[in-house]
C-alpha cells in the first residue's frame, strides 16, 4: 500500500468528499413496495380514496358551475395535460442531468465540478412560482415555459444523485475492471452506471414527485393541468370543486410515486 503513489487528481475516491460536502445525497427513506401485500397496499388506498370521493360527489346537489368544472371531459383533459407536463419535464431532466452528471464525475473534469454544481443550484434556490412568473414575463405563457421552469427546478436533485451514485461506486471495483482491460467506456456502462442505479433512481423518483406536485402551479401561467380545477374552484367559490381538484392531485402524485417505487425495485441490479 504505497499511499503517495497515486496522484491527487486521478481518483474518483478523492473527488467524492469534496463534492459530497456540498451536495448531500437524496437519502429520505420512502415507501418501497415489498411482497404482495406491499404492492397492493397503495393501489387499494388510492382506489378507496377515489371511490369515497365519487360516492360523496354523487350525494351532492351540483350546480351548473360545478358541472362545468368537474365533468368527465374536463377532468380527463386536465389529468392528461398534468401527466404530459410531468413526464415530458422529467424526461428532459434525465436527458440533461444524467449525461452532465457523468461528465462531471470523470476524473479529468474534477476542476469544473464545483462551479457547475453552483449553477444548477441556482435553479433549485429560486421558488418555482417565481420561475414560472419570470418565464411568463420574459418568454411566454403556456406549455413550454412551464416545462422549462420545471426542468430548471428539478435538474439539481437528479444531477446530484447521478454524481453521488457514480462516486459511491467502490474504487477498487473500478480499478479491478480497468486492470482486467475494460475500456473506460465499458467500465462506465457495465460497472459504474449499473451500480449507480439505486441512487440515480432515487433522484429520478424525487424529480417525478416534485414535478407532479409543482405542475399544479402551471394553471397560473395558462399551462393547464389539475391546478385548473383547483383554481377554478377558488375563483368561483365552490368548495366541492376545490376538494375534487385537491384529491385528484394527491392521488395522481401518490400514483406516480408508487409507480416510480416499483421501477426502482425492478431496475435495481441483483446482488446489491
Amino acid at each position, binding site marked *: *500500500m504505497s499511499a503517495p503513489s497515486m496522484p491527487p487528481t486521478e481518483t474518483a475516491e478523492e473527488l467524492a468528499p469534496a463534492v459530497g460536502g456540498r451536495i448531500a445525497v437524496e437519502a429520505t427513506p420512502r415507501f418501497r413496495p415489498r411482497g404482495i401485500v406491499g404492492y397492493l397496499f397503495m393501489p387499494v388506498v388510492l382506489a378507496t380514496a377515489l371511490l369515497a370521493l365519487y360516492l360523496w360527489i354523487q350525494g351532492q346537489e351540483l350546480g351548473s358551475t360545478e358541472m362545468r368544472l368537474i365533468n368527465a371531459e374536463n377532468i380527463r383533459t386536465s389529468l392528461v395535460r398534468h401527466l404530459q407536463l410531468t413526464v415530458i419535464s422529467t424526461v428532459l431532466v434525465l436527458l440533461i442531468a444524467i449525461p452532465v452528471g457523468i461528465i462531471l464525475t470523470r476524473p479529468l473534469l474534477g476542476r469544473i465540478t464545483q462551479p457547475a454544481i453552483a449553477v444548477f443550484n441556482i435553479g433549485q434556490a429560486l421558488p418555482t412560482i417565481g420561475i414560472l412568473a419570470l418565464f411568463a414575463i420574459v418568454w411566454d405563457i403556456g406549455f413550454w415555459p412551464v416545462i422549462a421552469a420545471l426542468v430548471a427546478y428539478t435538474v439539481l436533485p437528479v444531477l446530484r444523485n447521478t454524481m453521488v451514485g457514480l462516486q459511491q461506486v467502490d474504487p477498487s*471495483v473500478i480499478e479491478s475492471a480497468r*486492470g482486467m*482491460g*475494460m475500456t473506460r467506456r465499458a467500465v462506465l456502462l457495465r*460497472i459504474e452506471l449499473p*451500480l449507480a442505479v439505486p441512487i440515480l433512481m432515487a433522484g429520478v423518483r424525487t424529480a417525478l414527485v416534485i414535478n407532479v406536485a409543482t405542475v399544479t402551479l402551471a394553471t397560473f401561467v395558462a399551462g393547464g393541468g389539475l391546478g385548473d380545477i383547483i383554481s377554478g374552484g377558488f375563483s368561483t367559490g365552490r368548495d366541492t370543486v376545490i376538494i375534487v381538484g385537491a384529491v385528484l392531485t394527491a392521488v395522481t402524485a401518490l400514483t406516480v410515486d408508487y409507480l416510480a417505487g416499483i421501477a426502482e425495485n425492478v431496475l435495481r441490479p441483483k446482488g446489491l
Partner: protein
Amino acid sequence: MTHNDSSTGGNVGTIGDGKKIKIRLESLAKRFPGQTEPAVDDLTLEIPEGEIVIFVGPSGCGKTTTMKLINRLIEPSSGRIFLDDEDVTNVDPDHLRRRIGYVIQQIGLFPHMTIAENIATVPKMLKWDSKRISSRVEELLETVGMDAGRYRNRYPKELSGGQRQRVGVARAMSADPDVMLMDEPFGAIDPITRDRLQNEFLRLQEEIKKTIIFVTHDIDEAIKMGDRIAILREQSHIAQYDTPERILVGPADDFVADFIGRGASLKRLGLSRVRDVELHEWPTVADGTSRDDARRVLQQSDKGCVLVLDGQHRPRRWVSAEHLGRTDDQRSLSEIGLPADAVVEPHATLSDTLNEMLTSRYATAIVVDADGAYTGVVDIETINESVRGMREAERGRLRGELADPEGPG
C-alpha cells in the same frame, strides 16, 4: 545460484542465471505531476518466466506503483516495458491488460454480477463463445476449490472473504494469462484463512507455472511465497534482488537486515519444505488389526504409541499401550486413542510443520501425500538436522566469500 548486481550500483535488478526473461523493465520511471521526487526512479528489472517475484518494502516505497506501471494502470514517465521481448510501452493498454491477470487486496469483484459473470469478464471481452466460457468458468472454480454448481450463480455478497479472494484469483486467471500481478492479494484476510490460501496458491502455481509479480509489505509472506524477492526502498530503489534463501543468509545492507528483522534463522525454516527433508518412520497398523497385533508392533518399536491408518492409508488415531491395555473396551482401533492431528503435506514449510508439532501430543507431525495417505513423520530431530544443515551451508558460503574477495557477483 543467482547473482545480485544491485549492490554494485545503479537501480538494477538482473537475474543472470540463464533463465528466460518474461518481463524486462528498462530505466522505468514515474514522476507524478506536482511532486518533486519521482515515485519510481530509473528502475531496471528482469522478471524470470514461471517464477513468483515479490516486491516487498515499507509503505510508500513505490512497490504498488511499480506493479501498476507493468500493466500501465499508471503510465510510465520514461523507460520501456518488455513482455516476452515485445516492447509494450506504447501498445493499447486495454489490450495489454487482457493478457495480464490482476488481483488486488480489496478484490474488487463486481457486486451486481454473479460469480460466473465475474470470472467470464475477460473471456467475454476476448469474444470467446459461450460454451467455452461456461466450461472455463467451471474449470476455474474447481481449480480454486469451489463447487461450481453451488457458487456460479451466487453474488459476491453471498460469499465469505476467503471465497471472494478465490474468485478474484479465478477471475484473474480466466483467459489463462502468462503473467499475473497480485497486489497484497491475501492482505485483508484473517491469518488462518490467509495461510490456507497461500498454501493453496503455491500448490496451484506448481501446476500453472505463471510468471507472477506479487506485492506485499510482509517480509514473512515474501519469504514464503517468493521464488525471488525484490526488497525495495523509497522510489522503488532495489535494496536487494535475490532468492529468499540468499537474502536471509546474506542481507545486502543494514536496510535489508533491518527489514528482515529478528529471527532470520527461524524464518529460514519457512524456506525449507517437508519434501526437502528425510522423513522418519513411525510404527503403523491398519484399522482392522487386533489389539494383540497392535501391541506387538508397539513393543517392537521404541515409540510410545502406534499410528492407526484406515483403508486408504490415511492416518486416523494415535494409540498408546495404555489405550490398548483397556481390555474391557471392545471398540475398534480407529475409535480409541487420540485423533491423528498435526498432519502436513510435502509442500508445507518446516516452520508450519514445527508449529503443528508443538501443538501435537507426541511432538510429531504426520506427513501425507496429496491423497492423504501416510508417507512418514517429521519430528524435532528432523528439524534440528535441517537447521544444522543450513548453518553449515552458510558457514561454507562465508568461507567461500573470504577466499574470493570479489564475492559471488
